[in-house]
């Protein structure tokens, strides 16, 4: 090294012109990262579970049996704002995963798909319980209004959907 560069660096170190960032900053960043990722995963699980409940409570999959004529209505009736939110959170999850060292030890796609698989499994597990039913019941019976969620569960889930002989969906 040229001694010049070494002298410049050590002069800055000695005079405290440059300082080591405190370890607590890195600990806080790490905690933030872990928390952010955990929260993202929990929210995705919940929203995916809500999506499954929406599909089931509105019998949307049943409507597919009525042929291509009904498929357009099926597509129109999907909760796109929910789907978009899930996609945005999955992109955020992708960012969080890349911040961890384990993300490059194995092929990234494998790790990412593993996370997605675990999310789908947990969302499915919640879906098959009575969680959504009791949540909807509680939201309906109390004055507590959770933005978007209350409206989603009370007004958009649980409508009984049937088809008339002309394969037109009827919303009760």
């Amino acid at each position, binding site marked *: *090294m040229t001694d010049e*560069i*070494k002298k410049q660096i*050590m002069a800055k*170190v000695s005079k405290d012109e440059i300082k080591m960032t405190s370890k607590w900053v890195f600990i806080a960043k790490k905690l933030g990262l872990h928390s952010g990722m955990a929260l993202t995963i929990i929210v995705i699980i919940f929203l995916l579970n809500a999506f499954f409940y929406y599909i089931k409570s509105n019998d949307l999959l049943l409507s597919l049996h009525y042929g291509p004529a009904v498929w357009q209505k099926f597509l129109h009736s999907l909760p796109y704002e929910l789907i978009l939110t899930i996609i945005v959170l999955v992109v955020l999850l992708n960012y969080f995963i890349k911040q961890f060292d384990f993300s490059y030890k194995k092929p990234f796609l494998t790790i990412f798909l593993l996370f997605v698989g675990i999310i789908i499994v947990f969302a499915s597990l919640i879906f098959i319980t009575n969680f959504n039913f009791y949540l909807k019941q509680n939201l309906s019976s109390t004055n507590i209004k959770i933005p978007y969620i209350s409206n989603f569960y009370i007004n958009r889930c649980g409508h009984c959907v049937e088809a008339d002989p002309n394969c037109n969906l009827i919303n009760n």
Partner: protein
Amino acid sequence: MINVEEKTDEELVVYIREENKEYFSYILDRYESKLRRYLYKFIHDLDDVDDLLQNTFLNAYINLQSFNSSKKFSSWIYRIAHNLAINLIKKNKFTISIDENELLAFKLESKISVKKEFQNKELSDQLSKAINKLPEKYKVPFVLKYFEDRSYEEISDILRKPKNTVGTMISRAKDILKNELDQYDR
């Protein structure tokens, strides 16, 4: 006072963090020439290399508390240097190139013996050109392996890619070089 010669890089870093920051000069002594040589492969301007080298060590010092002492320090500091170099390359649209004189320290696991390679200046030129023609994604791990003598694990940590991927990239680099040199032999 500690016996610096007996301390590993990781132990030295812990000592710098907890006891005496002045010992950072020993880190500079240990890594200056290695990093300079590595950075020179990215940027052939000596002033830019000096700047990058200085920034690497400054960044390393500032972020020293983030280093996990259970991992290899060399991978960590090489990664800092690598990222700074890549940023400068992207900014100025440089390409990574190998100086033919560096082939004096180069070892190639192939049918071409090292001795023949050294004796044949023309082959050396061809090898240098062939290495410089490698796509960047193969050239960087290849350079780290054969010019910087890094292990696959260290290259994996520096480039943040799986070890298998690093192995595949280096293997492909060698295949491409063999094809290039075979064409030359004909």
